[in-house]
């Protein structure tokens, strides 16, 4: 799937190193967005969201639905350029996915406040099965193009070729990271940080912890949707959203763990690291026959285990305080 496309792209340009680097950074940006949403939910609500991949795939499918099936809101705004129409559809899809996040939090997570973290994590595994299966059924168990305006367009800088989708991915990631950094400085963001630090103390300060939980899930799901969308338009020539899209977020899990489950910085660093390592292995070890197929896909997991042996809470993760 994604591996072969990355290899094909990296091998095309004569400047292999730079092209691999670009592919790695843009794939890393996708992982970073997915990891960011995951870490945000974990930090604010202490929930490990195994359904993150399914939510991402749902978000990507919503774009398919709004942009190509319904052509909404583009059908009422035909005077706008296609890019703007598509962006509006994509924003709508992200909003719907954020709504899904709120619904999940309300129905399945809120009743579990105060219960064992493990139990909540397993609940999200159950949610993953439900959302993934229903989404796959909606998309008809086949790949669906997103109808994105960039398609296979490529910018050429001398020897270096960059897909427009890659540039957009990286730019959107940077913007989202800056937005998040700003958000954490606002009043609501401060309330969320306080909730993450100590829920009871936050309540005593008059913070509505329930609202913060819902907000965290909404933002987390929205970030998942953005990650899902860009993993479906990227790399160029990708077939769009498929029943396997949900597993791309599973590949972001090593990124989260390497960075540390509760570290925003760790999510970005881990995402970029995993993206780069995966693309470099795919492009430079792709010809090593005894490694077989799909080795690039497991490298993140191996890297994760190696990191955990040295640092059991990830690179930037907070060590758990253990009390008797």
């Amino acid at each position, binding site marked *: 799937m994604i591996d072969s496309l990355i290899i094909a792209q990296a091998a095309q340009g004569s400047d292999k190193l730079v092209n691999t680097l670009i592919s790695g950074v843009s794939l890393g940006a996708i992982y970073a967005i997915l990891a960011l949403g995951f870490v945000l939910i974990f930090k604010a609500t202490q929930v490990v969201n195994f359904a993150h991949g399914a939510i991402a795939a749902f978000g990507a499918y919503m774009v398919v639905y709004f942009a190509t099936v319904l052509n909404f809101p583009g059908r009422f705004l035909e005077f706008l350029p296609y890019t703007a129409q598509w962006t509006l559809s994509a924003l709508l899809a992200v909003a719907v996915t954020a709504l899904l996040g709120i619904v999940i939090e309300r129905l399945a997570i809120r*009743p579990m406040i105060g219960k064992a973290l*493990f*139990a909540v994590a*397993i609940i999200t595994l*159950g949610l993953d099965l439900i959302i993934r299966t229903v989404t796959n059924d909606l998309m008809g168990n086949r790949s669906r193009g997103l109808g994105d305006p960039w398609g296979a367009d490529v910018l050429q800088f001398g020897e270096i070729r960059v897909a427009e989708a890659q540039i957009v991915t990286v730019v959107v990631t940077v913007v989202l990271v800056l937005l998040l950094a700003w958000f954490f400085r606002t009043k609501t963001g401060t309330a969320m940080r306080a909730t993450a630090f100590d829920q009871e103390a936050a309540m005593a300060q008059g913070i509505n912890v329930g609202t913060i939980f819902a907000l965290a899930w909404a933002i987390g799901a929205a970030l998942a949707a953005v990650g899902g969308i860009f993993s479906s338009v990227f790399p160029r020539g990708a077939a769009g959203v498929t029943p396997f899209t949900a597993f791309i977020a599973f590949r972001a899990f*090593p990124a989260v763990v390497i960075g540390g489950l509760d570290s925003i910085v760790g999510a970005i660093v881990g995402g970029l690291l995993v993206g780069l390592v995966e693309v470099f292995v795919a492009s430079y070890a792709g010809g090593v026959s005894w490694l077989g197929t799909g080795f690039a896909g*497991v490298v993140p997991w191996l890297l994760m*285990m190696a990191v955990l042996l040295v640092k*059991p809470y990830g690179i930037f993760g907070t060590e758990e305080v253990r009390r*008797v």
Partner: protein
Amino acid sequence: MRGRPLLYTSYPNEMRLFPTTTKRVALVLLLIILFLLPLKLLPLVGFLGDSDWLILIDRALIFAIGALGLNLLTGVAGQVSLGHAFFMAVGAYTAAVVGGEPGSTLWGLEMPMWVWLPAAGLVAALIGILVAPTAVRVRGLYLAFVTLGLVFIGQYLWRNLGKIAGGPGTGREWPPLELAVWRGQEPLISFADDGPWFGVDMVRQGKAYYLLLFLVIVFALLAKNMMRTKVGRSWASIRDRDIAAEIMGVAEAKGKTQAFAISSFYAGVAGALLASFFGRLIPETWDLLLSVEFIAIILIGGAGTITGALMGTAFVVLLPRLVEDFTLWLAELAQGDSIGSSLANLIVATDAQDFGLISTTAAGPGLSIFQLNIVLFGVLIVVFLIFEPLGLYGIWIRIRNYWKAWPFSY
């Protein structure tokens, strides 16, 4: 002490495997029922002896062994593992290499079952010990990710190790369930052929049923014994409060490694039996869904209890069949023209144009029966964890206590 089942006059009495007369009588009755099941001698449920039901029941017995193992690790020792499918695969492929037929592209030693079945468990346990150092170092939710990684690494290995796992999409043949003295000899007992046994005509699923039932009983007693003696208690103390356990002299790392090794042994044996029973499995069988299925089993059944693990297995393995039968019954109902049939028509789609949440054909708009089952799994996991964290076992305890205290149950 007749009539006072909760009064124990000595510690050994309390620690007995089956402390009350009621339990002993119930156990004997259950064993008689289980023994008669494939002979179609039971009233009302004699159809369970049909071979299509026996396949399901055999599958449930195999899953029960795996669930007992995961129950020890997750339920008793409190270590969350999503890697059960990986250890089952290790066991299955060990069995294939030790017991399978060699081919031009396949390894195989053609050993008899009494070699490959224990070997499957032992190799899986060894791999479990190899993984344990990482698992012992990380705690709680990080462990879930390590074991999740095992599933993906395993899938990569099985896809690429053609000599062990066979080609992608085709898999390989597993040795049949036959007990022979040594390689190349006629099997003493075959659990994989139709034919009479002591003068009674039996299908092969019925024969395998007795072998599997025996193994489940052995493994369940073993697990029960481990739980009530030193090793199981050290696991429970690690689960409940690990630092306190360490202070009391329980070696945490050793306990966790033991739990991993023993749970992997169970998983390995279950994997080998599963593969051998079905004869041919593709590498994609050992995926995350299988692991989640086992998690679902112990959570729905009730984590940390043997009875719960067994009830959970029966529930989770037999549920798809019930759902399928129910859906087909609805589809049949939808053909008629009563009030019920129009309601059924809303739920079931019988062809591509029909509206319905569930479709009996591949082209239909709704969920297929297979998809419906996966969604139901998810719903059951969520519902049980929110409303009944103790699972079926908890429900059973509540019903039992109600009648125990009757007529003063409030």
